[in-house]
């Protein structure tokens, strides 16, 4: 029980000690006059102010600075005191030497005469000459500390002047000298001057430290309040954004300080999130369109079969059509899923080094019989090897989609002319350009930009099963690789180019400044 209370007391004492500087400052702040405007943000606001990093840093710096200043002043005060003591010592020594010389030349009588004369001067040093029994012969000292005269050498002692017997006891630094005949000579100086100077320095030190603390606290308060106001504004905006308004942006002052940089980077992040959300909305809209249409067809067909089919072959036919339709649906669904996952940057396989020319040759080889069957010639123009870094699987799929489209829309070339569909791979600076060109109707210039947008399917191609998603996937794959998909004119025909950085996608760099 007692142990517990003791520990509690200790803990409390410890906590008090640790909290002391802060609490002291707070009390000072509370006691200070500007309490009212300090409290203007409300009691919670004040607490928040104390909790800001800026204010806490101010306190830490203030404490360190105050301690440093105190040490400096203490050293200064102590050194001054030492200097004065040294001065006194030197003056007393000189006088002592002079008096001892006088004694040696003229004996005790002469000494007494000189001391009598000197002692009467105003502001004089302290003098005393005694016999060996301690009876005073001459001088201006009435009372001395006990035993001062017994030892020769330096002593600090209290004393009272003879001409002021009722005055206060004062402090002096004295030197006692044993004269050869047993007389004792005391010479000393009053220390009041030294103490006064010391007091002045100490007082000045205290005031300047107090001033430092007050100024530091006020400065810290204003800096913290300024920072806090900006952070509060940011918090407020963040809250609105979290509430659902993704178009909100944090205020950036353009000053380029750390808070500003933070705001700029957060804005960039919001931009990305908003783009992703927009993409997500487009995806769901398109999924709704791309899946609902065939689902409706599927449902209608089933309903119709139930209503009109009479014989087993009728049912069989209806069921087979349903199966085919659902297979198409699954294909569309898979394509949408792949695009969505590619768009969101969730690469399905880690990046690897591979040969882009090899990918092009592989795809061309896969599609060559198909092109042949449609009376199209398929040619590959690629050098031996073009190494690049990326997702081989997705790039193959993207290129396959492009070749598929080219074969679907392409028309045979003139006899003896160049190939109807050309797949070419070129290494161009730090980029790999994979190009698929056909001689089909192409896409009119105005529609080209839109065709590359994620999930946009041009009206004329919407009726074609599965088409349209091919370009979207290729565009998504290009974006995943940090490249782009360019639709161009092959005059006549369409030229689709995947421009991909050979080194693979770079991670998005945080912007230093807007």
């Amino acid at each position, binding site marked *: 029980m007692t142990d517990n209370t003791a520990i509690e007391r200790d803990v409390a004492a410890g906590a008090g000690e640790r909290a002391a500087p802060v609490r002291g400052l707070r009390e000072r702040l509370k006691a200070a006059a500007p309490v009212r405007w300090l409290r203007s943000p409300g009691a919670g606001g004040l607490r928040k102010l104390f909790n800001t990093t800026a204010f806490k840093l101010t306190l830490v710096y203030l404490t360190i600075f105050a301690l440093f200043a105190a040490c400096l002043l203490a050293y200064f005060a102590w050194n001054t005191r030492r200097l004065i003591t040294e001065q006194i010592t030197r003056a007393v020594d000189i006088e002592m030497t002079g008096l001892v010389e006088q004694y040696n030349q003229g004996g005790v009588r002469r000494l007494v005469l000189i001391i009598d004369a000197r002692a009467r001067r105003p502001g004089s040093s302290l003098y005393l000459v005694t016999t060996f029994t301690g009876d005073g012969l001459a001088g201006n000292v009435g009372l001395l500390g006990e035993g001062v005269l017994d030892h020769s050498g330096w002593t600090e002692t209290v004393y009272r002047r003879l001409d002021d017997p009722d005055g206060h006891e004062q402090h002096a630094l004295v030197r006692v000298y044993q004269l050869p005949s047993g007389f004792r000579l005391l010479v000393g100086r009053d220390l009041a001057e030294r103490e006064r100077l010391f007091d002045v320095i100490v007082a000045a030190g205290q005031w300047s430290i107090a001033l430092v603390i007050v100024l530091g606290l006020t400065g810290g308060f204003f800096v913290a309040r300024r920072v806090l106001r900006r952070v509060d504004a940011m918090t407020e905006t963040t809250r609105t954004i979290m509430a659902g308004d993704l178009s909100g942006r944090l205020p950036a002052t353009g000053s380029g300080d750390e808070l500003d940089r933070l705001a700029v980077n957060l804005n960039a992040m919001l931009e990305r999130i908003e783009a992703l959300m927009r993409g997500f909305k487009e995806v769901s809209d398109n999924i709704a369109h791309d899946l609902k249409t065939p689902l409706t067809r599927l449902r209608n067909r089933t309903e119709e079969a139930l209503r009109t089919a009479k014989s087993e072959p009728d049912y069989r036919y209806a069921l087979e059509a349903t*199966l085919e339709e659902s297979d198409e649906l699954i294909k569309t669904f898979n394509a949408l*899923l792949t695009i969505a996952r590619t768009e969101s940057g969730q690469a*399905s396989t880690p990046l690897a080094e591979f040969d882009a020319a090899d990918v092009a040759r592989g795809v061309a080889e896969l599609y060559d019989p198909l092109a042949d069957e449609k009376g199209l010639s398929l040619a590959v123009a690629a050098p031996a090897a073009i190494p690049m870094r990326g997702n081989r*699987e997705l790039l*193959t799929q993207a290129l*396959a989609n492009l070749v598929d489209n080219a074969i679907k829309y392409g028309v045979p070339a003139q006899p003896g002319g160049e190939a109807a569909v050309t797949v070419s791979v070129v290494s161009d600076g730090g980029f790999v350009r994979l190009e698929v060109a056909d001689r089909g109707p192409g896409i009119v210039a105005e529609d080209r930009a839109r065709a590359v947008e994620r999930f946009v399917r041009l009206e004329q191609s919407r009726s074609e099963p599965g088409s349209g998603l091919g370009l979207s996937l290729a565009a998504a794959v290009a974006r995943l690789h940090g490249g782009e998909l360019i639709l161009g004119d092959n005059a006549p025909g369409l030229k689709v180019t995947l421009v991909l950085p050979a080194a693979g996608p770079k991670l998005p760099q945080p912007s230093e400044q807007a």
Partner: protein
Amino acid sequence: MRLLIVEDDRDAADYIARAFREVGHVADQAWDGDEGLALALERKYDALIVDRMLPKRDGLTVIGELREKGIETPVLILSALGQVDDRVKGLRAGGDDYLPKPYSFSELLARVEALTRRRGARGEETVYRVADLELDRLSHRVARGVDEISLQPREFRLLEYLMKHAGQVVTRTMLLENVWDYHFDPQTNVIDVHISRLRSKIDKGFSQPLLHTIRGAGYMIRDR
């Protein structure tokens, strides 16, 4: 063939089991990972069909445990996760094949049959023979009767895969995966064109066709 189907979706599991029984196989069912593992350890199966997401113990863990205990029964993983990395993860965990949902039964059947047959002697033969069609895997020589047939390298690999699974249905996806090593659905069915090319080389001019199209499923090379 004796199969174990570990799948927690009862409708789907019942449907698969019924369909396997219809084509003459024996199919046991388990509803969660623990039950599936216990059954697979207790009885001898020709193949396991394991759903990836199962209650109590997920599919990949079940396969891992089986492989750790030295049970090498071929496993086909069923999963709603169809992306390339999911497939790679499944195969790395000890699965032998991976089929994303939704799948057609004909695809599942073809793959399971391919899995069980793979363990047979066919894999080690150097010459495949179906009727008078002969394929030499070492010299890359193909002949039908006395006529030598010249094939492109890819056509050779296509025929090799079909003949390795002679008498079994081989789906388009299986061909795309095993002959081309592509794991996506092409928009147009390019495989059909490759097959018809191959067919024109090996069947044209012969009274008995060997390469058959199995409607709604895929292709098969067989004697009759």
